[in-house]
C-alpha cells in the first residue's frame, strides 16, 4: 500500500463531486462523461454545444497538468491492448448507459438502483480482468 495517496484522493474526489453538482446546478444535467461525449457526437441540437465545452474543459486541465508538473507517461504498455480496451469501453458504456462518472459519481449519489448495480458490476469485472489478464501483460 506504499502507493496510497489519501490526501490528494480526497481533495480530487471532492472536486469531482463538486463538478457534478455544478453541472446540475448550472445546466440541470448529469455529469456522465460517456453520455456527454456520446451526445456531443450526435446530430447537433440545442443540447449539443455545452457538451463540447465540457469536453474542452477536461482537455484544458490536461494541458495545465502538463504545464505545471512533468507527467511521466506510460510508454511500455502495448498500444494494441489500449485500442482494444477503448473499443470495449465504448461499447460497454453505451450499452450500459454510463461509466465511472455517470453511474459511479452521479448515479450512486442519487441512490439509483441501476447505477449501484452498474458500479458494482464494473468494479468486479475490472478487478477480475486485472487479476486474470492485465497483470500478466508485459509493461504492467
Amino acid at each position, binding site marked *: 500500500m506504499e502507493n496510497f495517496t489519501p490526501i490528494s484522493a480526497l481533495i480530487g474526489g471532492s472536486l*469531482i463531486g463538486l463538478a457534478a453538482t455544478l453541472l446540475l446546478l448550472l*445546466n440541470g444535467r448529469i455529469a456522465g462523461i460517456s453520455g456527454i461525449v456520446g451526445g456531443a457526437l450526435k446530430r447537433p441540437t440545442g443540447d449539443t454545444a455545452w457538451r463540447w465545452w*465540457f469536453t474542452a474543459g477536461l482537455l484544458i486541465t490536461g494541458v495545465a497538468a502538463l504545464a505545471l508538473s512533468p507527467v511521466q507517461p506510460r510508454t511500455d*504498455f502495448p498500444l494494441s491492448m489500449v485500442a482494444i480496451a*477503448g473499443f470495449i469501453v465504448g*461499447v*460497454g458504456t453505451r450499452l450500459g448507459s454510463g461509466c465511472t462518472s455517470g453511474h459511479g459519481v452521479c448515479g450512486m449519489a442519487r441512490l439509483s438502483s441501476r447505477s449501484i448495480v452498474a458500479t458494482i458490476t464494473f468494479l468486479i469485472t475490472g478487478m477480475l480482468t486485472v*487479476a486474470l*489478464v492485465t497483470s500478466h501483460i508485459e509493461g504492467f
Partner: protein
Amino acid sequence: MLMQLGGLIAGVVFGAGLVISSMIDPRKVLAFLDVTGNWDPSLVLVLGAAVTVNFVGYRLVLRRSEPIFGDRFALPTRTDLDPRLIGGSALFGIGWGLAGYCPGPALVAIGTASLEAIVFCAALFAGFIAVDLADNFREAQKSPATDG
C-alpha cells in the same frame, strides 16, 4: 450560450479533480483494480469523496425548481435492471481493467499529449458508433422503412 459556460466550468473542475487525484494515470487506476497484487486503495477515497459531496450537492440543488442556465433538470428516471445495463457495465469493467482508462481520465490525458490516451479515445468513439449503428440497424429491421 450560458449552458456552454456551465459546461466549461464543470469540465474544468471535473478535470482538475481527476488530475489532482492522479486518476489520469492508468497505472494508478490499475493499482486500485489489482486487489490480488500491490493494492492501492486511493480510488475508493476518490469515488467516496465524489459521491459524498455530490450526494449533499444534488439534494441542495434539487430544492430549486430549475437550474440557473438550463431549462429544466434532466434526470434519469429508469429503475429497471435489464441485461443491457448489466452486460454493458460488465463489458465496461473489462475494458477499464485491460488498460486502466475510463472515458473522463482518457480525455484529460489527451491534454497531456499522451499517445495512449489518443488511441484509447479514438477506439472509444468507434465503440460508441458501433453500438449506435447496431441499434439503428435493429430498429430498421423491426419497422421496415417507408417512403418519406
